[in-house]
């Protein structure tokens, strides 16, 4: 038996025993690579996700709504930071990750390639998009890689308010004038299916799932998480008096779950491949922010270098 196989078996045994893997532990190269990809893409999703919501901060309808949204978007920047730091423990640098994002080599969640056309979209995003993210992230608090799991614990603590502020917006609109209710319904119509797509392709089309479950990167499959989200969300939509845009949606007594209609997978893959309504705009905004911010980063480093040389001069003369 080669020592490599032995290591892999030992590694799997540790995972099976529910142990956490820490950055300096031996790990299969594929485990490392998979995590770098997954954590960095999760980080990218957090910061690209600031863009559609940031779009409405200056136009929030009241101060209450404005401070809530501002605080939420601020949290998302923090989530990006926690996750980039977790990925850095695996030996990739921050700049490398940004480079992959900016060159279109790294993905981020497709949901953020949809536009936010009305204020109600901010409600729908908090309720549905953060709601879907919470389901995924709660699962990830138990993931096998320590730094990722710990970042998730922090993030989940903060997410609850995101979803509640979103639902409160939806509630206000749904109980408002006819026009406001129509806005809320329209936002639900546009965000429902993309939210279901957030859980990724069906299990049958998701070749990495088996390995991810074995390594306890994922503790539930895409289809299981999607079903969980639907079961939780349908009663919340009913409470709002809104209609989920799926004629096939109905409670299945036997299964104890909601049955639902077919997702438009063609649309899903189109958006993943870069042809969604806002892919270019989102990436353009990120690249622009990076390039326009270059002089600030450089100036800060120059200032730090200058202080260092001055301090060493002082300590030499002292």
């Amino acid at each position, binding site marked *: 038996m080669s020592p490599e196989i032995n290591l892999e078996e030992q590694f799997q045994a540790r995972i099976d025993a529910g142990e956490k893997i*820490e950055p300096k532990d031996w790990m299969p190269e594929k485990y490392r690579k998979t995590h770098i990809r997954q954590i960095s893409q999760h980080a990218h999703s957090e910061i690209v996700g600031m863009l559609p919501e940031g779009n409405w901060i200056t136009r929030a309808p009241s101060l*209450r709504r404005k401070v809530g949204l501002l605080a939420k978007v601020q949290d998302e920047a923090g989530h990006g930071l926690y996750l980039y730091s977790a990925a850095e423990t695996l030996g990739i640098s921050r700049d490398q990750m940004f480079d992959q994002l900016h060159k279109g080599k790294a993905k981020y969640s497709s949901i953020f390639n949809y536009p936010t056309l009305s204020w109600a979209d901010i409600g729908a995003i908090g309720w549905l998009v953060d709601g879907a993210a919470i389901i995924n992230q709660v699962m990830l608090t138990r993931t096998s890689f320590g730094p990722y*799991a710990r970042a998730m614990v922090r993030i989940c603590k903060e997410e*609850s*308010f995101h979803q509640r*502020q979103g639902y*409160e917006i939806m509630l206000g609109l749904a109980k408002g004038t006819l026009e406001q209710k129509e806005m809320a319904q329209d936002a639900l119509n546009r965000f429902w299916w993309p939210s279901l797509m957030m859980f990724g392709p069906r299990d049958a089309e998701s070749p990495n799932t088996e390995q991810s479950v074995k390594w306890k990167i994922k503790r539930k499959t895409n289809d299981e998480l999607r079903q969980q989200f639907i079961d939780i969300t349908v009663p919340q939509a009913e409470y709002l008096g809104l209609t989920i845009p799926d004629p096939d949606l109905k409670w299945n007594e036997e299964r104890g779950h909601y049955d639902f209609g077919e997702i438009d997978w063609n649309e899903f893959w189109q958006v993943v491949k870069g042809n969604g309504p806002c892919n270019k705009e989102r990436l353009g905004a990120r690249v622009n922010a990076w390039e326009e911010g270059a002089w600030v980063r450089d100036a800060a480093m120059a200032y730090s270098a200058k202080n260092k040389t001055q301090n060493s001069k002082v300590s030499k003369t002292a």
Partner: protein
Amino acid sequence: MNKNEWPIFEIFIRSKNGLEHRHVGSLHAADAVMAMENARDVYTRRQEGVSIWVVASKDITASNPENGGELFEPAEDKIYRHPTFYELPIELKHI
């Protein structure tokens, strides 16, 4: 001050994989290698840890308690950062 006084190191211990390193105390050592050996002897004699970080104390910049106001007071009135600020009906589940 004695120029040959050993510098102080802050010691962080991870009690088990999955948990973060936590500050447990400090010790003097001539360099980081010695700090590591001493930390092993001082802080993990009863299997308190599976991983140690030693950090030279001079490399830690600590906030000044006198600045507590300007640092931490601004968060006091930002109640909208908490889930309970948002008024949702109690009959609503999973939110």
